[in-house]
């Protein structure tokens, strides 16, 4: 009982110290967090991040991109989106499988950029800014499945 009391007082002191010195979250970070609500979506149509060369480095990235670049792969059922960030971050090269004509929206928290997808399922975006990114792949053919990739930081 006595030991318990001392332990709780020590915890109380620790908590006070925490409140005194904990770094407040910057206002703009809070604003971004509140705003993320607008991106509320239905996870069913999501292509999950299956591979990220930053985390899962097994030499595949070096093989595919010649080294020093980042490779991401998203999958949803039988569909896949591969993204290579090359030229020291200045170029984003995408590949959608199965390939078909269409367009892709590169969604950032505060803007959306569009790129065309060719018949081989390839697309290109120049100078993608660092930060959170999600791709929305829209096939040209009516009734084609829309693919959305999980948000990831590039």
């Amino acid at each position, binding site marked *: 009982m006595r030991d*318990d009391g001392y*332990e*709780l007082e020590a*915890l*109380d002191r*620790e*908590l*006070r110290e*925490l*409140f005194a010195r*904990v*770094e*407040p*979250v*910057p206002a*703009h*970070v*809070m604003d*971004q*967090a*509140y705003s*993320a*609500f*607008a*991106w*509320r*979506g*239905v*996870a*069913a149509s*999501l292509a999950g991040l299956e591979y*990220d060369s*930053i*985390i899962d480095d097994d030499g595949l990235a070096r093989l595919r991109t010649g080294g*020093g670049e*980042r490779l991401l792969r998203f999958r949803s059922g039988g569909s896949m989106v591969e993204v290579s960030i090359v030229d020291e971050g200045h170029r984003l090269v995408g590949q959608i499988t199965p390939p078909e004509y269409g367009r892709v929206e590169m969604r950032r*928290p505060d803007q959306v950029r569009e790129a065309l997808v060719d018949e081989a399922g390839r697309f290109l975006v120049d100078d993608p800014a*660092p*930060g*959170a990114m*999600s791709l929305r792949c829209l096939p040209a053919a009516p009734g084609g499945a829309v693919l959305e990739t*999980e*948000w*990831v*930081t590039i």
Partner: protein
Amino acid sequence: MVRAAADGSEAAWAALVDRFAGVIWAVARAQGLDPSDAADVSQTTWLRFAEHIDQLREAERAAGWLVTTARREAVRISRLGARHLLVDPWTELARRDEEVEIDEALLDQERSVVLQQSFAALPDRCRRLLQALAAEDASYADLGQRLDMPVGSIGPTRARCLEKLRALMSRLEEGQLNPLTFGKDQVHER
């Protein structure tokens, strides 16, 4: 709260942000990230949360999910940074000197994250009380009025809340808790 946010309540979403933004920030900074990288961790984590919120309808899972996601993203971004640096021998030597200091600072920060994560999982009533008690040396009478609590209950409630906090922390530290269900008994409680 999570259910309400999933159903479109912006106020519920804001309440979740208010409760957990600090922990996410602490996790990112504990990874050694500077404020702009930590901001990216926070943003991606909340965007992912918005994406997955339908699947996270069980409020109890939200706390652990947020911390786990933030931690993964923080590791990801910390490696991104390393890839951009040209590592030369002199930098490497200087870095090793700093490592001992950094290790101690990191231990401190880890403990701080555990404390913040556990605190965030406490019921509203406990968080309000402990925060009010820590913020100022107001009398129990003043606090009782402000928090709408009988004065006689403040002491015992404080002790119970600290005990809850202690229990959450030791479970987290001992790793006995599945991070996905952490806070299950707490977040739900009125």
